[in-house]
């Protein structure tokens, strides 16, 4: 287990260092997220709907689409010069490879979310205050779930034609449960509702994470073997 974790960290570290160096993908993803926020704001009738009423939807639409864009590139870097072959050739358990990719994707999507969140507070004039801690936890729980599935799907999609189109078609249905849970929790947190109203959705998020992280790890080898 120690060895698998060490390998996973080496792979994630490799991805993140490359990301830090070029920064293009990261900046594009952040700008993309900001644009989604702007569009959601303007795709509303300001006389009928106050910005705050739309805030949870805006946040989760942004996070969902930002994640899809980020995940599209997760395995694209492994394609040039067949670098993926290099990973598969090495004595690396497929599970460690999956874990490494998952960690890198989580770091990437998490950073995009961390930049989008203040923009969201700014654009939608959200009184975050006491809700911040809860919101961060909900974001983490939901993100782990759909990035886990997105990581295995992006490994598949990159080997097909129409990768950029296929990934969202496959992934968006899987984003629905975490997003329903997270958006519902977000609006309750912003309303300052008691915790007792949130148990059901929190349980949903936790259960989703457990099921799909486990399942994706188990199924990943089937995706890697040519």
């Amino acid at each position: 287990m120690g060895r698998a974790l060490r390998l996973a960290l080496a792979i994630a570290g490799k991805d993140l260092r490359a990301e830090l160096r070029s920064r293009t993908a990261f900046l594009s993803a952040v700008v993309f997220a900001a644009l989604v926020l702007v569009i959601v704001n303007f795709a509303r009738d300001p006389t009928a709907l106050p910005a705050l009423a739309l805030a949870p939807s805006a946040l989760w639409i942004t996070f969902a689409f930002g994640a899809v864009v980020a995940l599209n590139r997760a395995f694209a870097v492994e394609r040039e010069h067949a670098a993926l072959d290099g990973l598969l050739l090495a004595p690396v358990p497929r599970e460690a490879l999956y874990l490494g990719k998952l960690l890198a994707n989580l770091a990437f999507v998490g950073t995009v979310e961390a930049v989008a969140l203040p923009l969201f507070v700014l654009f939608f004039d959200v009184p975050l205050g006491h809700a911040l801690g809860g919101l961060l936890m909900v974001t983490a729980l939901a993100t782990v779930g759909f990035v886990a599935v997105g990581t295995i799907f992006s490994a598949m999609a990159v080997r097909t034609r129409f990768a950029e189109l296929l990934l969202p078609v496959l992934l968006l249905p899987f984003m629905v449960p975490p997003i329903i849970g997270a958006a519902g929790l977000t609006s309750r947190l912003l309303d300052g509702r008691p915790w007792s109203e949130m148990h059901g959705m929190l349980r949903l998020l936790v259960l989703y994470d457990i099921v799909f992280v486990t399942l994706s790890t188990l199924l990943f080898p089937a995706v890697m073997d040519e």
Partner: protein
Amino acid sequence: MTPSFASARAAVRRGRIVTAAALAGMAVVYLLALRYTPVEAHQGLAQKIFYLHVPAAWTALLIFSLMGIVSVIFLWLHDERLDLFAEASAEVGLMFSAIMLTTGPIWAKPIWGTWWQWDPRLTLTLFLFFLYVGYLALRSSIHDPLERGRFSAVVAILGMLLVPFIHLSVYLFRTLHPKPVVLKPSAPSLPPEMLRTLLVAFGVCLALYLGLVMMRYGAGVAERLRDAGGEAGEVPDAA
């Protein structure tokens, strides 16, 4: 048993017979629905669409679960017949989910007063449809059959586990935004005539699935054999 052109043709032939029988059964279901079952007090004649809608929904759900289970076994045994069966099932499943997606709103308009409601069950049918489409889209974009089998098996297995999550989350979503009370389509105590007709219709749908899948499976096997045989110079006899 190794697949051969003869066995593939036999599967198609048997499939045709079963399909024909199922279609005849469907006519019987229509008769039963119109003649045998009582008219529902609140919904009137519109309720009769349920003898098609509900069994189609059950069948679509059942097929997807079956695909998930078959895919698990496929990843374990790597028998390409399981993959062909899953592929055939997905196409038939897509048809059933299309049936329930069209019959649902047709029923909902007179009863709920709206074509669409985010009712957990109706929403689930929509997502089944999306999953079938995604599964088949993935299949059509991969050239190598071995890779196609493995990738689509992964999607089928993940999808099978997604279904309960969709149901649960939509249910939670609705408790967040309470809707005006709607008539629940399946009351707990159905009159025996209705229940019997519903079960007959379900049986007919299963038979239809079986027949269509046999035909599609046989055609799939023949296609693979033709591909493989064409390279080796064998000439398949005309089907």
